[in-house]
């Protein structure tokens, strides 16, 4: 094997094996881009974690329980860079319906909500 080839290969490897950017596991920044709540509710600070996409991300988000799940999905989709139709939100094993409000689910301050793949077909 020529030296030249080795070098090229090393370069390629370095590039290819670069770790995908993974957000810090203990996020500090609170992002609040959620739309205005549609019905009366309380402010909550929750964590969102993606099981989909190129890197496992966890992100803190300030939400209002009067927000609809569909609205939250729009916000979450833009934060995580994924199409809202490619994921569902899941809390405590229950897939959240886009038409419902956050307050329809027993979400507490500090809870984690997962982005799960749409292959779940709504289950």
């Amino acid at each position: 094997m020529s030296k030249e080839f080795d070098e090229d290969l090393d370069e390629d490897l370095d590039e290819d094996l670069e770790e995908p950017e993974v957000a810090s596991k203990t996020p500090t920044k609170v992002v609040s881009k959620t739309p205005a709540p549609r019905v009366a509710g309380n402010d909550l600070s929750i964590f969102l974690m993606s099981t989909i996409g190129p890197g496992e991300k966890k992100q803190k988000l300030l939400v209002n329980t009067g927000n609809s799940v569909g609205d939250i999905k729009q916000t979450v989709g833009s934060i995580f860079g994924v199409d809202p139709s490619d994921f569902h939100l899941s809390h405590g094993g229950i897939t959240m319906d886009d038409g419902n409000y956050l307050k329809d689910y027993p979400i507490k301050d500090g809870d984690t909500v997962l982005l799960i793949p749409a292959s779940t077909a709504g289950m």
Partner: protein
Amino acid sequence: MSESDFFSNNLTEEERELYDRQFRLQGWNQSILKNSRVLMVGVGGLGCEIAKNLTMVGVGHIDLVDLDVIEHSNLNRQMLFIGAKVARPKALAAVDMLKKINPNITIKGYRSSLEQLPPVLYKKADVIISGLDSMQARLNLNTQVIRFNKPLVDGGVNGYHGHIYTIFPKINACFECYSVSSSESDDMAACTVVGIPRKRIHCLFKAMMKFEEINSNPPNVKNIKELKFLKDNANELVEKFGFEPLFEEKEIIQIIDHHDPGIITINAVIASIQSHEVIKILNYIKGNKGLGIPNKSYIIYNGMTARFYHLDKPRNDKCPQCGDDVLWEDFYLRKDQPLQLIIDGLKMKGHNLDSEMEPIITIPDFNSIRELDLQRTVLENRLFPLSLLTISGFTEGDIYVTLHIFKDKTLKHSS
């Protein structure tokens, strides 16, 4: 750890040789698999892989169900159809290939929708496996597995992601334990578009239905004339009912000719886990715990990060399908007896008719619900043995009835 059944009389010389490497597994029991029967629903990307696995490992009896025919675009991942003719029913082509792969087992194919499948196939199965792409079909299967108390090993893929989930009736969540949001494509499958369009998408469905009425075949969106017909008719409704923006050709093609992206690698991961869970479940329910405990959690696989996630899915005891208050009854009729006898029988069993309503009996039909004629007989209503009927009009709410049909020779014994 239980011993392998290498010298079981149940197995032939040929089988001993074929399954030699499996016998060397700790706790393995080939006889259990040989005496098992599984029902595989959907022979597509996942189904082909699962059917291949269960055939090679030696599950004794496999029933395959699929309504579709082979398309050329299946061949990048559906290996059972290699060499088969395009447009041949998938279920039948799969059987041909699987018989070549393992001639020691029984394999049967059914080109059928779930609604038209004889329900006895669910009852005879030890485990039911699904590789489906619609929620509608999953819900149909859900009802059957709850009724017959069979484990349902479900899987699904979406791009580089997938999931595996086994429903153990009344133990973990079924597909109806929590409210289900249906996507627009499922709206199309349900074909519930009658009267005034309620959504923008319904305008397109109505245009499709109009095309089918005129031409008695579905539109081909690759044909410019037919595409224009759809666009014009859909947009006429969009404008009339205020669902703007108007449809463009590209969007119409995307909606009508919709196919999820699919790659064999992700399919194979999901299908392999489903297949292995089936093997574990068959052993577990037949008393061999040597292969481990079947998984009850919802498993997500992310092919981009190669990570798995497990979610617990607690059952909802108020579920309209598997909940504690759902009413299930069994009823026995002869082929020549009218269905009104079921209503009378339920009254005798202590159920009270709602005076405000006429009692009706319905059965799921392809993409819709069929109301049965109470004055007509079991035969005239075209009912299978073990048909699942929904009876409405009693004060307690809907009652599910499993209809048993007496065989002819038992006619004289029944009253």
